[in-house]
């Protein structure tokens, strides 16, 4: 039972353009969502989060959008940079237990110079 899905295993964009990474979830109990970024041979690092009381959260070039009715969230990176090339994991949890996050299987983003 895969409760968090990232249907695109990979995404390739040109430097300077927008990258949009998508994530769908099935468990309506989830009320806190996170994006992690992972470089090869490193652990995931926190990127940005959003709670279910919001539909948008912005941090510099990164914006996360949440559509609760569709159980869908997306990460927008504008403008994309070659250093953004990494695996991006979507994660979902209950606010009160964010340590027990359910992760998607990741999307590999490649930003071409």
């Amino acid at each position, binding site marked *: 039972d895969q409760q968090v899905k990232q249907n695109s295993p990979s995404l390739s964009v040109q430097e300077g353009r927008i990258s949009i990474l998508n994530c769908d979830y099935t468990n309506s109990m989830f009320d806190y969502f996170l994006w992690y970024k992972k470089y090869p*041979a490193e652990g995931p690092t*926190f990127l940005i989060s959003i709670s279910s009381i919001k539909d948008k959260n912005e941090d510099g070039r990164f914006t996360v959008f949440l559509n609760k009715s569709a159980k869908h969230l997306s990460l927008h990176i504008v403008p994309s940079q070659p250093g953004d090339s990494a695996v991006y994991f979507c994660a979902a949890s209950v606010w009160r237990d*964010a340590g027990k996050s359910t*992760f998607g299987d990741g999307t590999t983003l490649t930003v071409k110079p």
Partner: protein
Amino acid sequence: DTAVSQTPKYLVTQMGNDKSIKCEQNLGHDTMYWYKQDSKKFLKIMFSYNNKELIINETVPNRFSPKSPDKAHLNLHINSLELGDSAVYFCASSPLRVAGNTIYFGEGSWLTVV
């Protein structure tokens, strides 16, 4: 200065052996975790400890035994290793179990059972 460090980073061992992966965090966090990333790339939580007390124990074979000598350390011991145990194991920590805190991951330990 690594916040969450785990050793060894790479481990190749034979079936049936017993091995341990050590983890230490210097962030002063109360909660530590072990996650497993399998061949399908899913990150799944295995265990969670809060101040040396076991909080989460997902459906993990009892060949896996976490040990927390203090709140800065959470080691993972695996008995009678099987081929299916081959994976990347990530140690992690967070300030509190509650209130939307993020998780800080170690670099991972690549375990290969042959």
